[in-house]
């Protein structure tokens, strides 16, 4: 086979990596290179260096080490039965590319993933070697995210966690049955064991030794995972139940939902659909309500009988419309927990309300200036100079928020 140029390898291996949604570079340990001996910094908040026309942020150089893979997962562009062109980067090529891109301020760091070649250990050990070279040889202090391979040896995972900011392992699909069906070589139990192992290693890296010395930090930006939405028959309740379990069991920083998207040379086992982008968006909204707004899982999923979220309106609004008896709420007296449940109020708005109402009475215009989306919220609140009166209980309230009905096409 003719030798591929670096450019064609980059084209093949970034194309193969784009189905991983994560591109976060935030929440790691603070560090910089003011000492002049290294390159890179990390200041807590992530930076998106560009946006692709798919609306996704480009923060990291997201590539595969190789897209050769011995597994045959139906949803994956790199499965062994696919005829996409294959390529493989050498360790040094990835190291140089990362450093050169970083110096030109294109990226925050590297997100390295790989197809499984030869054996899981061999693949993981090459990935660890890339991270080690970046850290030790190039003194790179930017962000590194490594996709770990579930059945790789524990020592490799441990070294990976000491070198990288974030580790992730994809659970792939919302239920074990679907994983076994569409990813026959992967074992859901093994994936969970690997996540458990990362959590244990991260927890134990917090314990000081008897002399009070802190051990080196293990994956300071935590671990994350990804679930493909819409490839199998799971409904949103199953998806969210799985993610609440993952957040609780393995202290995940994020569960990414990735709408199943058409891939080149798709498998006949999984017919292509147009990606359910709106469903993906609603799942992220529900995920946020569960983690930051104090909602319980069944409060969100009980809104519709089929266990899926309402696609026309957001889950918080859906909940509020079902519980109109609790509204309107007085912004000058309601508890924090209840303020968080008002549609159109975010966490920041609620905090601003709480600080200001300590010393004065809030009016409708104040809420506007504090960043509340009053178009949504006004049916559910009372404030100085504003009462929704009959609006809260009006029969057409839902219709005010839902998108207008669409005329079906004749053809």
């Amino acid at each position, binding site marked *: 086979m003719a030798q591929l140029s670096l450019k064609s390898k980059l084209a093949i291996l970034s*194309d193969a990596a784009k189905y991983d949604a994560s591109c976060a570079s935030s929440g790691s340990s603070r560090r910089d290179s003011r000492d002049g001996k290294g390159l890179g910094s990390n200041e807590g908040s992530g930076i998106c260096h560009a*946006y692709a026309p798919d609306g996704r942020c480009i923060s990291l150089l997201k590539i595969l080490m190789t897209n050769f893979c*011995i597994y045959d997962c139906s949803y994956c562009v790199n499965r*062994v039965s696919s005829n996409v062109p294959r390529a493989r980067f050498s360790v040094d090529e990835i190291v140089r590319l990362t450093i050169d891109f970083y110096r030109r301020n294109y990226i925050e760091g590297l997100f390295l993933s790989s197809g499984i070649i030869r*054996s899981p250990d061999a693949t993981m050990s090459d990935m660890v070697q890339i991270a080690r070279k970046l850290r030790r040889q190039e003194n790179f202090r930017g962000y590194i995210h490594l996709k770990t391979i579930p059945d790789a040896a524990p020592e490799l995972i441990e070294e990976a966690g000491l070198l990288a900011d974030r580790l992730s392992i994809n659970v792939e699909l919302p239920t074990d049955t679907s994983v076994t069906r569409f990813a026959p070589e992967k074992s859901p139990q093994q994936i969970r064991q690997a996540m458990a192992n990362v959590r244990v290693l991260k927890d134990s890296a917090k314990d000081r030794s008897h002399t009070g010395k802190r051990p080196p930090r293990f994956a300071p930006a935590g671990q994350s995972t990804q679930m493909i939405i819409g490839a199998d028959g799971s409904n949103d309740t199953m998806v969210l139940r799985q993610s609440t379990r993952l957040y609780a069991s393995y202290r995940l920083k994020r569960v990414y939902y990735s709408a199943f998207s058409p891939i080149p040379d*798709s498998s006949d086992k999984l017919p292509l659909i147009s990606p359910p982008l709106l469903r993906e968006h609603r799942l992220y909204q529900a995920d946020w309500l569960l983690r930051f707004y104090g909602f319980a899982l069944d409060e969100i999923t009980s809104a519709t009988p089929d266990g899926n979220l309402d696609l026309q309106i957001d889950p918080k609004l859906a909940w509020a419309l079902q519980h109109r008896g609790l509204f309107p709420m007085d912004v000058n007296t309601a508890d924090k927990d209840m303020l968080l449940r008002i549609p159109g109020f975010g966490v920041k708005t609620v905090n601003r309300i709480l600080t200001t109402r300590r010393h004065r009475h809030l009016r409708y215009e104040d809420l506007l*200036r504090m960043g509340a989306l009053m178009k949504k919220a006004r049916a559910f609140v009372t404030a100085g100079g504003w009462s929704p009166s009959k609006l809260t209980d009006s029969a057409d309230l839902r219709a005010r928020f839902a998108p207008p009905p669409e005329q079906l096409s004749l053809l």
Partner: protein
Amino acid sequence: MTQHMTVPRIGAAAAWRDAARGLLSRGTPPEHVTWGDDAMARGLFDETPAPIQPSEIRVHRSFVSLANSVVWHNDPQRFSRLYHMLWRLQSQPLLIGDRGDPAMAKLRAMEKNVHRCQHKMKAFVRFREIGDPAAPRRSFAAWFEPTHHTVEPTARFFQRRFGDMDWRILTPDVSVFCEGGALRFDTDRPKPDLPDDAHEDLWVTYFRNIFNPARLKVQAMQSEMPKKYWKNMPEAESIPELISTAPARARAMAQAAPTLPPARMAQVQAMQRRNLSSWGGPISDLPAAVHTCTRCPLHATATQAVPGEGPTNADLVIVGEQPGDQEDLRGKPFVGPAGQVFDEVAKRAGLDRNTVYITNAVKHFKFVPRGKRRIHQRPNVSEIEHCAWWLDAELKLVSPRLVLAMGAVAAKALTGSEANISNRRGTVERGRLGSAVLITYHPSYILRLSDKAKREQTIADLQDDLRLAVQEARDPGNPKRPDN
């Protein structure tokens, strides 16, 4: 009488703070002050106040950080808005937390604009290399057009980030140079002619390929990456084309008929099946299962399969090559001439054969008949890989602390590597399944050596390795692993 205060473009934060402090300590109300930067003409009747020693002013610290951001806004009213707020805060300190107050809300919005502009600058500056890439300190330059005066407050971010290189960011307003780690600012530099950079092409390649044409969300992209920044970003040139061809590309993917899997798939999957032993019975059933094995053609010519032998809770598993003539007849491992050499060296090394599990990489004897004798043949890769099914099952059931690989075939079966044994002996490698594997010679190698000195040396080496194996299996302290 109106006083005019001029705040310079470089160092505006400190200059405004000093001026505001001075005015406030003299009790000058905001209506009596006009503000401007050094690019602005002053009023006809404005006078410059004599500098005075400011007294101490107390204000909430969140106002200090608010002011430190708002001074960089491009609103000509910024300095006077800040001074108005500072004046009001003296009598109404609670105002600082009030997002409902219109003036405060305006200042907070301006603060947010500046933060966003700083953030976009951190994200969208694109450097080109202007020096020698092999120089100890490489140098880079960028041309950027920020919306607000954000170069100065953002320069430290780049200083923290690019500690080991020289860089400069030139803008129509204030430009910054970082040489040897020190920052220098300058104003009104012309737009430079930066040299081409080959990495831009790679970056554009990356940008084009990381885009998924099946999920077009142009609005989401543009709200985060407004068009005003596009002219200085090399990747932005491809955006119109990517958008216009996306629907057709997505359609083509959906309409393409499923293809037949490539030829190598069967090969890969066969290899995988060989790699993973899914034999899951209890260890007591293993010998019987090995006896019925027909995974490779060797079973047809050998007398019998020879399974491993020894305690199933052993800390050490020793793996040889394959049964020989004697082993094939008796159905036990290591009982022929090589087995006798092994026993002798093991005794000297303090290894008790009854405490270890001993087996072979290949369970059937491979030979060519010659007259009345059977001549040993080295098993080929396919036979080794087929038989790894059983070896892996044995290792899984015994789960030893250390595996000793004797000879090239055992080393290949356990680590997958066929590299030269004399270079690897005495070192611990990682096996295919993650176990620690110590490499040494096969005892039959000693039988084949005719040179006496070399033979003595090899025996000594084997003895050292066996002793090391006993130690490591008892206490796997820190196995030496070759640094890859």
